[in-house]
């Protein structure tokens, strides 16, 4: 009764406090959700029917287009335990206003990237100046099967739209990419390698490594890719921390002001029988109501923010699992109550006589 009446009596201050909590919640959920974009890229890259990735010998994992595809494929398939080597020529290609990585593959290797039932519309690659794109890119750019896209001085026809989640968003025949790039002979940026027996991945990897190539299991490559984004994680984490701290300070100041304003009221409450614990509880209850409303506001801001981001950048990913909403709510509630605790304790300790005399 009293906590609710008190926060409703000061609508502007209550609104500011609720927004402070809400913005903190939304920032946490959306920014942390954005980091899943990086995870999504790593996931797609390693979501292939293969066991290893083979790159040119280098200190860094980079996009390169230098391996002689046929020779390296032959060398790899000569390694005991290797079932099949899949060359991939990866190159930047602009679609839907953003640079994508086109995966140049042999049409017959499509089966390792997506089973046929992952083609939602049209057909897989067969050869020539054609491409298959994923459904997300199609939606973002308004692309349709049969449409042509002009790049590199060529017109590429979209022949199929695949389910989102295959390795890349754009696939073309490897020879088509090489031709467009005026490469001599078939080249590959890297290889996916399938082994005959998954239990033999480790020795096969060592054998390939001895040939002077960089080799990763798909799990290792996922970790390498994910860890290369650690700086962004740090930036996002810092922003989230600062946002949370600012919210905490806003709540602390708001509740402190509330307590000072209601010095006399606290004296009255004590005069009519309120205990210290009850005064403490009343102040915390007001903060709790603000936290509750702020959490709801935060969830609404999150959904709105996510929708806006995906509207402006449809190829971005903002993943927010349900448990993270719970975590955000707990952090917001905990932070709000922590911010209110000191002013609440101050109120509880107030001398009733001094409070009654307060002007």
């Amino acid at each position, binding site marked *: *009764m*009293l906590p609710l*009446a*008190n926060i*409703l*009596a000061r609508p502007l201050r209550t609104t500011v406090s609720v927004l402070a909590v809400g913005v903190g919640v939304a920032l946490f959920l959306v920014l942390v959700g954005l980091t899943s974009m990086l995870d999504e890229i790593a996931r797609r890259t390693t979501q292939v029917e293969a066991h290893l990735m083979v790159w040119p010998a280098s200190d860094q994992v980079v996009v390169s287009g230098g391996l002689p595809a046929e020779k390296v494929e032959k060398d790899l398939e000569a390694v005991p335990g290797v079932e099949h080597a899949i060359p991939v020529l990866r190159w930047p290609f602009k679609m839907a206003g953003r640079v994508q990585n086109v995966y140049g593959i042999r049409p017959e290797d499509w089966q390792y990237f997506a089973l046929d039932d992952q083609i939602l519309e049209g057909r897989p690659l067969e050869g020539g100046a054609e491409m298959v794109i994923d459904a997300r890119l199609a939606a973002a750019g308004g692309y349709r099967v049969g449409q042509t896209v002009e790049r590199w001085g060529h017109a590429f026809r979209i022949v199929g739209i695949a389910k989102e989640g295959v390795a890349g968003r754009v696939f073309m025949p490897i020879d088509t990419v090489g031709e467009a790039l005026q490469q001599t002979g078939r080249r590959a940026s890297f290889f996916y390698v399938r082994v005959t027996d998954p239990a033999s991945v480790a020795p096969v990897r060592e054998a390939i490594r001895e040939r002077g190539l960089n080799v990763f299991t798909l799990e290792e490559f996922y970790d390498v890719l994910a860890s290369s984004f650690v700086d962004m994680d740090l930036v996002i984490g810092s922003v989230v921390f600062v946002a949370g701290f600012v919210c905490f300070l806003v709540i602390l100041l708001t509740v402190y002001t509330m307590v000072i304003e209601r010095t*006399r*009221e606290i*004296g*009255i*409450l*004590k*005069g*009519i*029988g*309120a*205990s*210290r614990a*009850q005064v403490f509880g009343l102040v915390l209850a007001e903060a709790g109501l603000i936290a509750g409303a702020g959490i709801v506001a935060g969830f609404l801001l999150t959904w709105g923010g996510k929708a806006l981001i995906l509207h402006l950048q449809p190829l971005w990913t903002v993943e927010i699992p349900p448990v993270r909403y719970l975590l955000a709510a707990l952090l917001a509630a905990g932070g709000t109550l922590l911010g209110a605790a000191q002013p609440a304790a101050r109120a509880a300790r107030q*001398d*009733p*006589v001094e409070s*009654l005399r307060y002007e």
Partner: protein
Amino acid sequence: MASILETRSLVKVYHADGVETPALRGVDLAVDAGEFVSIMGPSGCGKSTLLYLLGLLATPTEGTVRIDGRDVGILSDGERTRLRRRHIGYIFQRFNLLATLSAEENVALPLRLRGDRSGGAPREMLGAVGLEKKRRRRPNQLSVGEQQRVAIARALVTRPTVLLADEPTGNLDSEASDRVMDLVGRLHRDTGQAIVLITHNRQVADRADRLIRMHDGRFVDT
């Protein structure tokens, strides 16, 4: 008749910024159950301080306060709070209603604070002070006299043994003052609790069974 309220050699000294201000210099008071006592004196003579000590809102520097025979000086903070809830009704100077609550909610507050379901008691008490129809109004929607009647209702809703009234007519005109004192007198007759009322007003003070004059922290005429 046993005293419901008793003080012995009560002393209260305020300390602020290294300065000592004696407010009470040894007060002996005994109020019987059902007795109406008024205390008169000039501003600064210690009347309000005496009421704070009787209402367990402050602790004496020296001396004892007994309520219903219990020495409150040896009680813990929680015990004092419970004793205050059970035995004391307080009418503050300037009414001190909570502005965000309605009249009924203000009256219900002491019951809620001690964990009682208020039921119909607040409405009944507002009826006794003639404000049942205005029970949903906020204090700023009531006249000064009506606010004071709500404060009286709040003080009495818990059926306290003792009612302490600090200048209950201090902010009222003479007509409203008479109405409030008529009400206090009627309720006193109906409920029979002891009343200690402090006032500047001789006419108000004369309504009591006993008048005590106070000056410079001491009783000068009882």
